[in-house]
């Protein structure tokens, strides 16, 4: 008994101590308790159970900060407290928010007018869209501790609740000439030492590139209010990393962001391209219908290019290219290299034709098909050569040769693919056929690429393995069919023999029972 009690006593003491510790949450002061207990006109508590649960889950430091805020009467109304808790911020963000008097004051609906109120439910037509509180706390700058004062100035820790702006913030005419925005953002984004503290991987040459771009010249030299600035693409509050799907510059959203201006005929009115032709407004529609647009926007393939992959981000075009028409080579390097080594390279340069775009188009790049090479009116080769190289019949003959070879291989690949599936359903081993079909598919892809060399020899070198594979497939399919015939014959023979045995048994049975 003594042993048991000597064992149980410490256990009991430890348990009681643990329970006592659990029951020692921070005492909620009267003011905060009053806010939690407040009821709306409908008799329901203003602070929802979810908001209360969120508060209960906060660590002691955050609870103390919130209590301090309430005690200092920065938060005095339950609706105001509800707005803060409803954000459900993780501790790091909540700490920033609770120490920022700018946000705390601008989220109080009793103090602020709709046009200065940061709110989760903006009043339609009254609250500007950039004052969405959720966007604000999701902003990439807020995440790194840069809040209102980072751009607008002032002391967020001061209790005086007064406004003071940084010197770069224009006191008036901010919307008239928006060129100031560039230098405003560049204060930090062009400062590599400063940026290194937050995101060392982020370049700091955006402003330099932008100044050199048509957009930059349009804004800074022509002083045209239609020209885009940083905020046009990145937004105001609620700026997110380009990797965030909600960002305006996330790859899938880039076409929509660019199209907001470039599809607007009114906005583009009077603008011209470098060749003097009017600025088109159908790029977005064409892009959406293109192979690239469908890959990115319909299939969600983030490897597919958006506007900025060819036209550049802040600069006019991607680094290292002298013309947008060369941007295809960034992805289609093999085809570009073959083209560069072909006779067409020189001819295109003489005519000052864009390289790939001449045959494939720029924004409306459709899926290629072998008939582009075929003789006839649809043939791309024919169309040009009738006009520019009438005296060289060899060119059309080469195109026809390409077409004939590709069409034959494609036909075999399709037909034998179906045959292989049928044979597989019959229980035959079609793995060797599939191996050969894969060889054929590889060769077909290579051969299609090698038409950009415009050389029969180069093309044939790529097509040779495919033509060998075709012979191999034909042989394997015949073997598989012969094996199936053998199975059927074997079955018929077996059944015939068994039938004879059964007949003999039946006759024997009848004799025995007679």
């Amino acid at each position: 008994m003594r042993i048991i009690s000597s064992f149980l006593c410490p256990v009991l003491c430890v348990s009681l101590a643990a329970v006592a510790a659990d029951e020692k949450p921070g005492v909620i002061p009267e003011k905060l308790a009053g806010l939690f207990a407040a009821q709306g006109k409908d008799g329901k508590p203003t602070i929802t159970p979810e908001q209360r649960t969120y508060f209960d889950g906060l660590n002691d430091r955050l609870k103390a900060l919130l209590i301090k805020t309430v005690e200092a009467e920065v938060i005095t109304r339950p609706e105001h407290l509800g707005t803060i808790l409803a954000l459900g911020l993780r501790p790091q963000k909540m700490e920033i928010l609770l120490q920022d008097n700018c946000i705390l004051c601008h989220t109080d609906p009793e103090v602020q007018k709709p046009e200065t109120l940061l709110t989760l439910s903006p009043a339609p037509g009254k609250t500007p869209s950039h004052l969405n509180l959720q966007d604000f706390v999701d902003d990439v700058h807020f995440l790194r501790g840069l809040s209102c004062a980072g751009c607008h100035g002032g002391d967020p820790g001061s209790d005086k609740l007064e406004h003071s702006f940084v010197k770069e913030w224009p006191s008036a005419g901010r919307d008239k000439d928006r060129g100031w925005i560039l230098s405003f953002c560049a204060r930090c984004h062009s400062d590599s030492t400063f940026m290194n503290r937050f995101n060392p991987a982020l370049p700091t040459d955006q402003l330099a590139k932008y100044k050199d771009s048509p957009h930059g010249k349009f804004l800074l030299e022509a002083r045209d209010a239609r020209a885009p600035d940083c905020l046009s693409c990145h937004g105001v509050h609620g700026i997110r990393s380009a990797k965030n799907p909600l960002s305006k510059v996330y790859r899938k959203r880039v076409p929509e962001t660019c199209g907001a201006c470039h599809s607007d005929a009114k906005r583009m009115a009077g603008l011209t391209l470098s060749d003097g032709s009017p600025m088109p407004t159908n790029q977005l529609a064409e892009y959406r219908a293109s192979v690239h647009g469908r890959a990115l926007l319909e299939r969600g393939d983030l490897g597919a290019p958006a506007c900025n992959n060819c036209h550049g981000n802040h600069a006019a075009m991607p680094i290292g290219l002298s013309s947008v028409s060369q941007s295809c080579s960034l992805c289609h390097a093999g085809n570009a290299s073959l083209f560069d080594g072909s006779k067409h390279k020189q001819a295109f340069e003489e005519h000052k034709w864009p390289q790939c775009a001449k045959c494939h188009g720029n924004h409306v790049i459709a899926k290629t098909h072998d008939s582009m090479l075929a003789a006839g009116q649809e043939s791309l080769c024919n169309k040009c050569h009738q006009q520019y190289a009438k005296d060289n019949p060899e060119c059309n003959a080469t195109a026809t040769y390409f077409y004939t070879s590709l069409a034959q291989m494609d036909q075999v690949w399709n037909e034998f693919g179906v045959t292989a599936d049928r044979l597989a359903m019959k229980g035959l081993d079609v793995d060797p056929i599939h191996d050969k079909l894969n060889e054929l598919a590889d060769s077909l892809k290579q051969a299609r690429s090698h038409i950009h060399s415009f050389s029969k020899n180069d093309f044939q070198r790529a097509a040779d393995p495919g033509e060998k594979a075709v012979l191999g497939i034909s042989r394997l399919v015949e073997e598989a069919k012969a094996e199936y015939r053998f199975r059927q014959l074997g079955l018929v023979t077996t059944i015939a023999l068994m039938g004879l045995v059964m007949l003999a048994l039946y006759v024997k049975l009848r004799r025995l029972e007679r």
Partner: protein
Amino acid sequence: MSDSGHGQGWLGWLDRRYQITPLIEFLRHKEVPKGPHSMVWYYLGGMTMFFFLVQVVTGVLLLMYYQPGEATAYESIRYLTTKVPFGWLMRSVHCWSAHLMIISLVTHMFSTMMLKAYRPPRELTWVTGYILFALTLGFGFSGYLLPWNKLAFFATSVGTDLVKSVPLIGNWLLQVLRGGPDVTANTLYRFFALHVVILPLAFVSLIGVHLLFVQRQGMAPPLGAKVAPRGMRFFPSFALRDLLLWLVCFMVLLVLAVFVPYGPGIPGMDWELGQKADPLAPAFPGIKPEWYFLWEYQLLKEFPPHLFGLEGPQLCLLVVSLLLGIWAIIPWLDRQAQREQPSPGFSDFGWGAILFLTFLTLKAWDIGAMEPATSGSSLKVISRTCAWWTIGAGAVIIGIRWLLHRHRWFVFTGAALLHVVLHGWLGLPYLVAGVIAAVLAAVGIAMIFLRTAERRVNPGGSR
């Protein structure tokens, strides 16, 4: 030494050494009863055994190439079916024979049930047959995993997960079954051991007992045969007929194996090898077990996650165990058959069970599904379509029994059809419809009992 006079032939040689005369005499005089019903039911047991023998032979041949193991199981089956001469035929025959064996076994069991062949003194024959049926399902379940392909892997994961619902020892049982918390190579090894050693030993032993009972007691004569029925000599008349049927079965098996090598392609009856199992890959939707487990799979889906303080699968397991328990002790429940009197209630119970299983199986096959099959409207259409088919089948069964066999006992079939109507047509939840049908069936049975008791007390009373 026997002096029955088998002479100097090989029988005489054997008889002098092993005294086989009594055995020969037994075979010579053994008879199979001939009754008013069709003889075809007597051949089903033999047919099932034939398919089992095919399983043994093809299984042994497959065993010569099969290598259990995570890195070898799938590859060896692939090699067997693509490179080994006639390996494809062995696998195809093995798979087809497995399914045909279950079809023939189920038919054998239901025919025994309908003809009341389980009545005394053959109760233990029924029980051994019942255990043989369970072992056959075990063969199917364990063999399914052996190719170690994607479908088998996930179906086994889902299937074994059910044992967790067994009270108290569920988790332990799961560990034992899988050889760990998850389906791994350990599961494959123990399923292999089950499939090729443990189950065959148990099965062969039990078949021995089952056949011994049949031999000792003879085949069950028709119910109520007061005089000894006419007999057919077992040897050679019945045995040769058996052999002829076996040859027909073998022919069918070969034709199916050559022309439909991977099964008819319906869910639960398809054994194309497909892709190798990948334990790290996410489970894909629409994993379904073999067709003979589909009813239970569907029944599990009909149960809510929690009910009456129990988990849905636990309750489902309880209901299934109860039904299977009743099925096992039918010979002792059926008092009328014990008195050699017709027991239409138990026949009706058998038909009700068939309709119950049919509806669930059809539902599991998503008969009548629209795209997407899992949408609420599609599930309603599936229930309605399956209800139509089940009611159609039920009408045919009732019609035949009523008009041809003059049966008047339709409480269980009626309850099964009412259940289907309430759920499939009127849209009541499956369990609610089931409870209503069960309560009405209980009331119906109580009324029948009361009326019967009244008649006994007052045989000449007014109708």
